[in-house]
Structure formats: C-alpha cells, structure tokens
C-alpha cells in the first residue's frame, strides 16, 4: 500500500469574502422599495417594535370601537396569547401538541371553580392574586403529568396521544361531576379579575388587560428565547440526537416546553373565563385548537411576533370582517383586486384583464336580462355602495341558491384549470373566472358566512403556503431530509425549504 503523504498546497480562501457569504441573505429581500422598507424595519430592534406595537394596540379603543369590534379584539387577543404559548411547544421545541387547548380549558375551569359559588355552600371566592397563580402552578403540574408518559414520543405519535388528551378534557367537563363542573351547562357567575384591588368589569378593561398580558408574555418569552433554555429548545427541535450529544437532557427540556406552554394557556384561560363570566365545554373543543394552529402557522411558527401577529390577523379576518356582510364584501373584492395588481405583469395585461372583466359582467347582465327578467330578478347580497356598484354587473337570478351551488362547482373546476394552463390561456380565463367568483359570492358565499369564513381561512393558508411558507414574520427554515451516498460512502446532505410548519425530518427516535 503506497501512500502519497505529500500535502496538497493550500488554495486561495474561496468564500472567505463577506460579500459572497451574505449573498443568500440578500436574496431573501423583496425587490425594489419593498425591500428597502424591509431593511429599514430590520434596523429597528425587537424591543422598540414591541413597545410601539403594544402602545398602538392599547390606543386602538380610543378610536371609538363599538361593542362588536371590542369583542372581536378580545377574542383576537385571547387567540394571540394562546398562539404565543403554543409557539413554545410547537415552534421552538418542535412537539406537535394537539391537546394544547385542554390547558386553556384547565385554566378557565380552574379559575371558574376558585372564583364562583360552584363548590361548597358559599362557594370559593379567592382573590385574583391567589387564584391565578394557583391555576398557573396547577397547569404546570398538569403539563408535567401529560408530558411525562409521552416524553419519548415524537411526531405523529405525540400528536395522537395529545389529541386524545384534548378530547378527554372535553368529555371530562361534559360528563364528570355535573354538580361541580356543570356538565354541558358549564359554570356561570364567575367573579371578575381584579388588578391592584380594582375589579375589571367592562370589555374595554379586559381589552387593556389582555394587551398588557400579551406584551408582558412576549417580553418574558423573548428573554427566555435568548437564554440557554431557548437555545436548548430549538436545538432539540432541530436534532434531538445531536442535542443529547451536546450535553442537553432532551426529555427534561421537552417537558419544560410542555410546562411553559401549559402555563401560558392556563393564564389565558383565567382571563377568558373572567371576561366571559361563564365557561362551557364547547369553548375548549377542537375548532379553537385549529384556530390557534392556523394563527401560529400563518404568522410563522418559531417567531414570537409571528405567532401573535398571525393570530391577530386571522381572528380579525375570521371573527370580524367575515361576519359582517359589508366588510366581507370589501375583503373579497379587495383581495381579488390586490392579487391582480400584484401578480399581473406587464401593466398592459392587467389593464386588459380588468377591462375584460368589467365588460364581461355588464354584457352577461344585459344578455341575461334580455332573455328573461327572472334571470336578473335577485339583488346582490353585498350592502352599501358595493351593492349599488354591482347591481348591473353581477347576474343574480331569482333561484339564486340552486344556480349558485352549480356556479360553485364550476368555479372550483375553473380555478383548477387556471393553475394548470399556460400564461396565454390564464389571461383569457381570468375575466370569466372573476365574474363567476363574484356570482358565487353574491348568491351563496356571502349568504352563509359561517361556512364561507372557514373556506376563506383555508384559501388564505393555501395562498400563504405558496407565497411565503415561513409565515408572515417567520424566518426561512430548511430541513435536512436525505443523505444520498456516493461510492465512497460519503455524501452531502440535501436541504430543502420546509413549508413553514415544523415537520419531523428525522423520524427515528434515538432514545
């Protein structure tokens, strides 16, 4: 065996240049003035941003919000707090916890029992400064109890086990000890929360309380994120085996994430219960869990600000805009217009599509009206000036429901066709698609907001996944998936962009 021991000459230091090293980073920015804005925003530190946004949130009611808008704000802040807590478990520790909403319920029920006439002849009416800490400590213990048996589970298995736990909580509150927990009738007559000896009884008061608690929670979690604990959580998410080999006790760190998430959820639950004055099992069922997850994913899992922003945006759209017929109309047509303006280039193409859409609508209305008066007998469901603008453009027949259903099926087919065909056909198909979409909106979608808002959230998530997989404020993530081996048994790992959400890239549990 003859071995050449002559060392090869050291070459030039390729890649040592800073410009080259930052190339990938620069490509993350949006083009033109949008990128400039991004850079400018990045120069502002995290803390000033939190302060400004927090103050802006606190100043919002001064604009004179109505009762409905204030309630939407409270709901949005509750989901935002929950999303920020869920971010610890899902975004940082990478544990797919589907029982998270049970901790929220535990906090609400715990507070309700400690601050109502439910137990004993006179009830327990603990002051807030005792009941809230007791509930939070209880939630930490519960988090430990749930996490302990499932600490070795990862990915799908953990998701299933925690999902059972979440469902078990709903069944428990529905069926166990009805005299104490109230069964499906829940617990009513819960004391308000008092802060510094002052009881909070108005919705505005709870809005301010939630803003303060959200900002404080975000601050605490930011400090935690930049400490050894936060680094350990993220290391465990990235690679449990490597983390263990780098002195990190993986199971203990996972349990800690579970506990912190549970504590934030329980704290939110106490405020929720006090604001609602009542708690019911259905408040803590799977739909709430889906909303929290949707908010977290929309904002960007792994980012505190992203979790809060995503949940707020989602809830304002879902709970606020989509429930009112006027606002949902603005949102629908506004989004279509915005997408066209952003996506259609050159400008000539945009102008052609818009003109064709407007002309097609009026033409269809005129033709349908000429054939039969019944075909244009109905009016658009939108109200306000939108209704006036749309009156002669959208065809709304007398039997709107049946034709609207068929229109919906046709619209789905057209949308599928639209993403499959080439550029020229897309331009041709766009005007009829938009006209059909408005027809379906006015006849069916706007009429049934309860179903439509679910569809819209799905649509928003699909668009988000394609346009910005890391979420609104999340940072780009990569994930090592395969190690193709070359002849000598050496290989370079292939990395790819992950769709924002945490996935178990390494499915083998090393423990």
């Amino acid at each position: 065996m003859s071995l050449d021991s002559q060392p090869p000459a050291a070459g030039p230091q390729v890649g040592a240049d800073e410009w080259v090293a930052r190339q990938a980073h620069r490509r993350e920015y949006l083009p033109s003035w949008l990128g400039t804005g991004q850079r400018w925003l990045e120069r502002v530190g995290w803390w000033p941003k939190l302060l400004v946004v927090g103050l802006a949130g606190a100043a919002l009611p001064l604009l004179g919000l109505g009762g409905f808008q204030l309630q939407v704000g409270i709901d949005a802040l509750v989901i935002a707090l929950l999303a920020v807590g869920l971010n610890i478990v899902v975004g940082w520790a990478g544990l797919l916890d589907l029982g998270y909403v049970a901790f929220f319920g535990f906090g609400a029920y715990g507070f309700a029992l400690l601050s109502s006439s439910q137990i004993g002849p006179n009830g327990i009416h603990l002051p807030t400064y005792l009941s809230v800490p007791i509930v939070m400590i209880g939630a930490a213990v519960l988090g430990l109890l749930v996490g302990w048996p499932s600490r070795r589970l990862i990915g799908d298995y953990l998701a299933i086990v925690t999902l059972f736990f979440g469902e078990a909580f709903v069944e428990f509150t529905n069926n166990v000890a009805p005299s104490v927990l109230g069964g499906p009738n829940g617990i009513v007559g819960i004391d308000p929360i008092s802060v510094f000896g002052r009881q909070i009884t108005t919705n505005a008061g709870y809005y301010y309380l939630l803003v303060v608690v959200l900002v404080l929670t975000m601050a605490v979690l930011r400090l935690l994120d930049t400490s050894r604990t936060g680094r350990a959580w993220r290391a465990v998410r990235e690679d449990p085996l490597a983390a263990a080999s780098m002195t990190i006790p993986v199971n203990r760190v996972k349990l800690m994430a579970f506990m912190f998430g549970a504590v934030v959820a329980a704290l939110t639950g106490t405020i929720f219960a006090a604001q609602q004055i009542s708690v019911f099992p259905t408040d803590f069922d799977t739909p709430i869990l889906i909303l929290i997850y949707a908010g977290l994913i929309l904002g960007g899992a792994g980012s505190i600000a992203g979790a809060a922003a995503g949940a707020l945006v989602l809830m304002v759209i879902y709970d606020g805009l989509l429930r009112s017929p006027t606002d949902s109309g603005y949102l629908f047509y506004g989004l279509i217009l915005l997408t066209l303006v952003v996506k259609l280039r050159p400008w000539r193409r945009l102008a052609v599509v818009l003109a064709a859409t407007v002309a097609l609508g009026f033409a269809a209305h005129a033709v349908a009206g000429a054939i039969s008066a019944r075909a244009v007998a109905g009016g658009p469901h939108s109200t306000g000036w939108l209704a006036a603008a749309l009156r002669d453009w959208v065809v709304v027949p007398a039997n709107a429901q049946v034709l609207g259903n068929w229109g919906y099926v046709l619209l789905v087919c057209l949308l599928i066709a639209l993403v499959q065909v080439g550029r020229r056909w897309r331009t041709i198909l766009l005007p009829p698609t938009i006209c059909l979409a408005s027809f379906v909106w006015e006849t069916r979608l706007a009429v049934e907001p309860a179903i439509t808002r679910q569809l819209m959230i799905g649509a928003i998530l699909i668009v988000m996944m394609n346009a910005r997989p890391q979420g609104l404020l999340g940072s780009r993530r990569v994930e090592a998936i395969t190690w193709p081996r070359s002849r000598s048994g050496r290989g370079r790992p292939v990395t790819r962009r992950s769709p924002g959400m945490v996935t178990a890239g390494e499915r083998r549990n090393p423990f």
Partner: protein
Amino acid sequence: MSLIGPNGAGKTTVFNVITGVYQPSSGDVLFAGRTLAGQPPHRIARLGIGRTFQTLRLFLNMSVIENVMAATYGNTKAMPWESVLRLPRARREEREVRALAEDVLSFFGQRLAGYRWDQPAYSLSYANRRRLEIARALATRPRLLLLDEPAAGMNPAETHEITELIARLRDERDVAVLVIEHDMHVVSGCSDRVIALDHGVKIAEGGFDAVASHPAVVEAYMGRDPEALSDAG
C-alpha cells in the same frame, strides 16, 4: 489516535457505543476510571466526551454562534426564571458562554469569522459545516473528542487544513482526539496511534506505517493478495 477500517467495519458503532447512543450488549466502556455503559448521552457528554457526526447533524435553523452556545447547556446552571429576570448568575454565565463560543469559533480563523456568527447554519458551505460541528463539540469542553470522518466531502486543500487543525487541537487545546477517517493523508498526518477494525474486531494497532502495512489490514481492504491466491489455486 485514529480508527480505520473498510466500510461496515463498525467504526461509527464504536462511537455510538462510547457516547451512549447504543447500549453495549455485553462488556463495559471505561472513561477516566468511570463506567459509561448505561448512561444517557447527555451525561456522557458532560463527563467530557465531545463528538461530531459523519452525516452532519448541525442545528441548521439556528445561527452559527447559537449552535456553539447551545452545546454549553449541561455546563451552565441558570434556571429559566433567572434567565428571564437576567439575575447575576444568568448574566455571568451568558457572558462566559458567549466568550467560550467566540474563542472556539476563532480557533478556525477566517473560516468562521465574526460576520458569520449570526448567519443561520444552513447558509454555511459543506466544509464550514464540518468545522462548525467540531467547534460545537469543543464547546462541551471535552477531554476526549470523537471526530467521525472530519474530512469527508472536502477537497485536498481543505483536507490538509483539517489535518493541521486536528494536530493543533491535540497540542494547543490539550484534547485527546479519536478520528475515524478513510483519507490516509489525514490518518498519517495527525495520529500517534492507529487502530484498524474489521467486522467489529480489532485487527491491528500501532504506528501508522506499521498498521498500514500490516497483512491483516491489507487483506481487509484489498482482499487476499492475488498472487498468493493463484499460488494456492
């Protein structure tokens, strides 16, 4: 010291048994007079055994310096509330951890220089990822460092550089280094002793030249000498 052997000889398995990823079905692992068998990986790492991985297991979505700082978890003590309130112990530890990380990274000179510290680890080139793995392992303050194919996928210049680096680790940092490597430049350049392994059995041990020309090693890599075979036939 180097560990060599053909593919499937059990070299990485040796590492996994030492670091507690696998449990030995019989026998024991002794390190500085203590038994390691049955201990979990994070405790073995705290006892002073750092390692890198053949397949590169960096924390890809964390910054370069966070990768290194994360590896100090077991050697720091601040509880979460101390970190949140930034109490004296947490602040002191954070300063020390930062200084340690910067020190370990500066060991690689220009390659992992200051401007890279806040970049995500996935933006590093392949060779730099290998360097970062070594830096991360060093941050656990090991007395024994296990390097699994540190030169895999590197070009000749980089291979030469990594060989010198391993020698510097041994001399300047006072770390015992155990290397698995197929590249004989690296093995000859940095090892005092070489152990050859085949099918999980030690077949030779000694200086590089002695092991490289040992008949059992030659047979393990090349098969039987064709002339000897034809003679026998």
